[in-house]
């Protein structure tokens, strides 16, 4: 071994994966292909009834689902696909039909919820609210809620369950009789399913109906093969290490792009104001924290909401350009590539109103997406502006500390993420250590939201722009 790698061994060498020998260049495409091949092998040739795939944000989960579906169909297997929302089902159907226009696809839907008209452009997609009309299609897709109504039908040989970590155990119970074997794909770091009524009486039971479907599945079938996608294609090199460390401490992943490959630049120079300074910081480093003076505020903190709107306005005004690779041509940063994420719906509504007042179209076709973490799950943007869930709060409740909420908000962007927050969140966290009761028999979930929040805050502190509006 030459001395060069040894000299670099202490510092984290760019381009090396954790655990690989220093100097070995990490080839994201090769690693991802290796993982995908193993997953497809388990699914097509394995003996286990289930295969679980953990996928970090933007690791090509949908691509994997489409690929697995095509290969299963090519092998002559009948296949059903279960997703959680109508939008997810429509999106998968669209991708599947685009990838393979010859494949006969069936889109099963509720009588009151017709599929997206976008699917009309595919002749290979048959749409119906009755499963009997679609039984002959090679692949049939529907939401878990719709599948639950399907009864008395010969089971499918194979199923793919998408977003399985967001599916509740009782929803899986309703549909599991419809298939013999299944591939479960999902992101363990995102928001857990929840129930509006108490479900503590079943906590610790392997089939707790309010738990995630994957937790129940693995509790009853501990030997199932589990795979992991190792590369996030969405998150830039500036974000993947933080998100991996803070939210996936035991299952690290890497960015598919190297440092400096993803860039954000502005055509107009900053005016020196807070929003412009934080945008410059975010363009430079991938992260920016716009810190407003400490204060306890109502949920729809008017100052913070205006600050979020101002950042978005400047983002558009300054002619942002995004570079996706080392030699890629720049693409203009348009409104539809920007998202604003909040914790609560009323905050999202307040941001929309503030944006409208600044003349920025929000939550309309081609406009800026403004929504809660729950509804931004699974989506991807170039730049995100996040109103920190704990900003201005006098207390830190389990809802606001939930790991998945922060993880969703911090992992939607391809280029940069700007967080708007009141000062004092670190102190708030220290005053509110997590105090959830420990339930017997429940696997403790890592990382704890409290710890993840601190990890993200510590990182953001290095990109802080203090501003008094």
């Amino acid at each position, binding site marked *: 071994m030459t001395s060069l790698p040894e000299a670099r061994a202490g510092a984290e060498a760019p381009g090396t994966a954790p655990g690989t020998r220093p100097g070995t260049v990490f080839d994201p495409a090769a690693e991802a292909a290796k993982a995908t091949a193993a997953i497809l092998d388990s699914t097509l040739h394995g003996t286990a*009834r289930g295969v679980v795939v953990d996928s970090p944000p933007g690791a090509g989960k949908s691509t994997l689902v489409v690929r697995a579906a095509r290969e299963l169909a090519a092998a002559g297997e009948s296949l059903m696909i279960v997703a959680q929302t109508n939008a997810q089902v429509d999106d998968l159907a669209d991708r599947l039909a685009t990838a393979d226009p010859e494949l006969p696809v069936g889109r099963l839907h509720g009588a009151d919820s017709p599929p997206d008209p976008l699917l009309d452009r595919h002749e290979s997609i048959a749409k119906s609210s009755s499963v009997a009309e679609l039984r002959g299609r090679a692949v049939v897709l529907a939401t878990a*809620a719709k599948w639950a109504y399907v009864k008395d039908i010969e089971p499918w040989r194979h199923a793919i369950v998408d977003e399985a970590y967001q599916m509740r155990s009782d929803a899986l*119970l*309703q549909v599991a009789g419809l298939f013999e074997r299944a591939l479960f794909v999902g992101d363990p770091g995102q928001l857990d399913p929840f129930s509006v009524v108490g479900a503590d009486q*079943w906590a610790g039971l392997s089939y707790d109906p309010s738990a995630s*479907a994957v937790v129940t599945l693995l509790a009853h079938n501990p030997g199932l093969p589990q795979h992991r996608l190792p590369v996030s294609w969405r998150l830039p090199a500036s974000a993947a290490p933080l998100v991996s460390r803070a939210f996936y401490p035991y299952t690290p992943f890497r960015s598919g792009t190297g440092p400096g490959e993803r860039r954000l630049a502005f055509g107009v120079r900053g005016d020196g104001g807070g929003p412009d300074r934080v945008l410059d910081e975010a363009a430079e480093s991938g992260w920016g924290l716009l810190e407003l003076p400490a204060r306890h505020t109502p949920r729809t903190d008017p100052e913070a909401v205006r600050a979020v709107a101002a950042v978005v306005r400047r983002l558009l005004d300054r002619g942002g350009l995004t570079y996706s690779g080392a030699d890629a041509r720049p693409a203009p940063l348009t409104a539809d590539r920007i998202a604003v994420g909040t914790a609560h719906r009323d905050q999202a509504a307040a941001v929309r109103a503030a944006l409208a007042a*600044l003349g920025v179209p929000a939550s309309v076709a081609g406009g800026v997406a403004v929504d809660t973490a729950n509804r931004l799950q699974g989506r991807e943007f170039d730049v995100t502006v996040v109103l920190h869930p704990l900003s201005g709060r006098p207390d830190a409740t389990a809802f606001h500390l939930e790991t998945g909420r922060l993880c969703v908000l911090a992992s939607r962007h391809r280029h940069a993420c700007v967080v708007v927050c009141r000062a004092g969140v670190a102190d708030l966290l220290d005053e509110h250590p997590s105090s959830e009761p420990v339930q017997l028999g429940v696997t403790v979930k890592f990382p704890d939201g409290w710890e993840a929040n601190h990890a993200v805050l510590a990182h953001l502190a290095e990109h802080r722009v203090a501003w008094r509006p």
Partner: protein
Amino acid sequence: MSVLQALARAEAVAGGRAVPGATVLHRRLSARPLVLAVLTTAGEAGAPLGALVGTERDAPRLLVVPQPLDRDLRFAFFAELAGIMLPLLDAYGERTETEPATRNREESQLCSDALQIVVPNAATVEYVRLIGRSTRFLRTSDDPDAAYPVPAPLPLLGRWLTHYAERARTPGSSLLLAMTDLLARHWTTGQSTLEDQHLGALLGWIDPPPGTDGAAAAARAETGRTPDGLLVSPPAGPATDPRFDNRLLAPALARFDAARKAGSGVARAQAELRRLVESQLRPVWDDVWHGLDLLRALPEGAHVEERWKRDRWSFTGHHDRVKAGEPPQPRRDDAIAAAQKLAGRETAQARLSAQEALDDPLAMASRRLSGEAFSGVVRGVEEAFSEGRRPMPRPLVTVKTDDLPQAEPGARAFRAVPEARSAQPAELVSVDRDPEPGAGRDRNPDDGGADRSDAADGSGSTGASGGRSAAGRLVTVRLTGGMGNGRVPKEGSVPVPGDLVTFTFFEHEPRGGPSLPDPEATPWTHGGPPGAAAAVPEAPDPVTAEDHL
């Protein structure tokens, strides 16, 4: 906490007494509820010390366990409780009415009323569950193999208590009610929800004695002591006041034990214990009835009767299962039962939220504030028709409102129509700012108090406030049903300009989801049918060093 509740708490603090949290009664209060106040023994799980129980305010039955650690005495207590409750349960179970057949159900017999149990607080509901769990599997003298047989009615009492405690988990049910929950639902105090668990303090805020205010009355209930050191308002159970335990109860128990050993003076020692236990329970008993008085002053909500009927179904179902000789409820739910219960409770919760809002303008106000509903005056109605071979009326109704609906165009909306069987469906078309704001300029509720000081800063962009402080909005919805089958809408089915209307974005009669598989068809993901995996019995806990401390 909702905005409205935060405001109500602030108002309660400012005004020195609780403010109404509801305009109607949202739970059924039976004309003859069974009130049950229980005390337990410190340090011994599930060992009752005594109870006051009965349906007559002036004639409670006092049950006391003179030595709580003596299991014979404990079972005698349960047997006495069973002797009071089981005849009542039977009497309700026998009075039935005929329920006509529906599409999914044959004609069946439904109990015309059910026994309602009212306990002081949520902790007592848990205690009822614990008693149910500890007695429903006991083996009785009917069982020749029982090593330690208990009196025959005990397991039956346990099954009923288990049923009541389980039903209490269903949102909106009224079979087993905790007085603190009832009062906290109908009044908002100036203390925290945790402090509202104290029945005496809660009543202090709602109905402070003359000459004092809510905060003072609550403080007295929590900490005030008589000259002999006992709490003025003893804990509402099941826990007791430690000072009572140490100073009075422990010596009295010692005297009882000594008397039993000596074989003389047992009756006197027992009478003393009864007097002591009653001294702690009587104030609680009176508080519960005081709470009932306060609640009965409220008119009953319109949908309460319907929810009570579901409670009667639940009561009837359990009564029938007991009569049919079915075994007691299992120790744990299986996968299907758990999923079924959770789904049922989620539906019940959605139904309860919707019905409370429809019954009570205060509850609706809370939903309007969160953007789930809006009220206003109809500004205009535009005739429109659906496309298709047979055009149906789909009128556009524009409502002027000061609410801020939070829904996307296309969202389903519902309107309660008087005398119609179900809600009228509609579809949100648009939400616009009112170009000519009228006189009644209201600030928007979601602005929050910080708005004024922000404006004073002067640096915020002025345009940003435009979206928030505008006086009113024009919301347009398209009515999509409830107008009959003709080309002309049924009379009275379409509002006219000037009408006050409320549209909600939540359904008024949420229905349950699809049925679950049978337990025998439990899928492999959930461990297969129950019993299949039980080939390996549960391993007992290993003995550790701590077991021999």
